[in-house]
């Protein structure tokens, strides 16, 4: 009796994909960027990443047991949150920082809303913002690559209008610069992003408009006169690539339709640029994504597709 007749409701077409598989694939696609981060900043960065992941998984399990819900620590989403949070930390933060940040990200950013799929904001970024507001002196202390000497990030140097040391586009592209653990190596981030794009796990509708908007703003307003800004520098520095491909594209907190996603990406780009060029902080990727997370329901509402067979609403 191998050929049973199974009667089930729609949808009838299945794809061999699941939330669990996609989550783990995103984790895998992020490994090269983290590996370069550890290579550039030393083994200490590795422990930050590991602690971030362990705490995220532990917190998720603990809260789910306490609230008597299904324990979902193996679906990869907590691992991804912990990993992304650690990637967003400077390489020499005290080791309790990723622990506290991961706990906050999972507990307040995710579980308070009801777990995976219910959260309004990207949990990893919630954790990062919390750490940023709480311990700014650790979160703004960056080190030079291959060294433990503190130095500002390229964007911070730009903000203070200081002379930027000989830093080439190639350095920025390969990750030889100060910055957060996971954001420095653009090359390996793009590698991971390409993998996700080709497999169809993420679409170009958010990251590409996002990056183009930031580039355009930097070109128009970033220089001493209009239309003379260093757009490539702005695209390659900070957490833009990491944020655009891996955090703005979070399924739960971004719009559903292609049109909505383009709006989301452009919105992120505008906010990021405004913060970078005129704001108080040197970098604005995390704030931009969180702010656009907040308006995602509104975007969804106005870009809703017509249900097949119904008339357009008048």
């Amino acid at each position: 009796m191998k050929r049973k007749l199974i009667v089930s409701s729609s949808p009838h077409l299945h794809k061999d994909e699941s939330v669990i598989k996609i989550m783990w694939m995103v984790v895998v696609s992020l490994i090269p960027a983290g590996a370069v981060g550890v290579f550039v900043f030393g083994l200490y960065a590795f422990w930050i990443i590991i602690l971030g992941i362990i705490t995220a998984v532990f917190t998720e399990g603990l809260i789910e047991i306490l609230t008597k819900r299904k324990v979902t620590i193996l679906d990869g989403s907590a691992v991804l949150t912990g990993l992304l949070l650690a990637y967003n930390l400077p390489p020499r933060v005290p080791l309790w920082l990723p622990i506290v940040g991961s706990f906050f990200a999972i507990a307040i950013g995710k579980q308070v809303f009801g777990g995976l799929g219910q959260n309004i904001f990207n949990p990893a970024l919630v954790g990062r913002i919390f750490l940023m507001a709480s311990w700014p002196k650790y979160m703004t202390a960056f080190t030079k690559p291959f060294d433990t000497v503190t130095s500002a990030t390229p964007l911070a140097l730009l903000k203070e209008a200081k002379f930027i040391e000989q830093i080439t586009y190639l350095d920025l592209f390969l990750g030889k610069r100060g910055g957060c653990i996971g954001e420095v190596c653009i090359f390996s981030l793009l590698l991971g992003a390409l993998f996700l794009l080709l497999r169809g796990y993420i679409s170009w509708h958010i990251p590409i408009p996002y990056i183009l908007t930031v580039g355009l703003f930097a070109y128009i307003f970033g220089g001493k006169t209009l239309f003379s800004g260093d757009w490539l520098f702005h695209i390659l520095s900070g957490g833009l690539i990491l944020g655009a491909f891996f955090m703005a594209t979070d399924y739960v907190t971004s719009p559903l339709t292609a049109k909505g996603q383009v709006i989301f990406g452009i919105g992120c780009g505008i906010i990021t640029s405004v913060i970078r060029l005129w704001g108080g902080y040197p970098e604005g990727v995390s704030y931009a994504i969180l702010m656009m997370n907040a308006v995602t329901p509104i975007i969804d509402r106005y870009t809703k597709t017509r249900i097949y067979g119904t008339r357009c609403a008048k």
Partner: protein
Amino acid sequence: MKEIFRYGLVLALICMIAAGLLATVNSFTKAKILAQGQKEEEVGLREVMPEAFQFEPIKSQTGEILYYKASDKEGRPVGIVFKAEGKGYSSTITTLVGMRDDFSISAIKILSQNETPGLGARVSEEDFAGQFKNKKDLNDVCAITGATISSKAVIEAVKKKVEEIKGLIKQ
């Protein structure tokens, strides 16, 4: 029409009683509030210019206080104290500055600020504010890491005001 007069009358009555009550309370507390303000100011003045004994406010023609002239027990002038205001990251930072006769800073005190806790708000701390002591060239004052805007606001405000006061004295 009759109603509206009744309403007016009731409201007026309540307001009159309230006003009378407030006037009474005010007459009791007025002197005390004034004294509190003066005491506070004096404490601040002493803090930034400990060597002085007496402070005499110098007023402009319109009556606002430009600066305080500080003198020691024998009445010899030792310096002046003034307020400097600068726009910080999220608030206007008001700083009280003591300046000796040789234009070196005796001390500064942040009177009011509403900067980010843990970053900009650290301008009030001794690590930053203490740097001003005995300095003539304020370019040596180091900004707080991560709080450049707030630190610069204080430094620039003090610098600007020092120049202003120098001009005033010359006149």
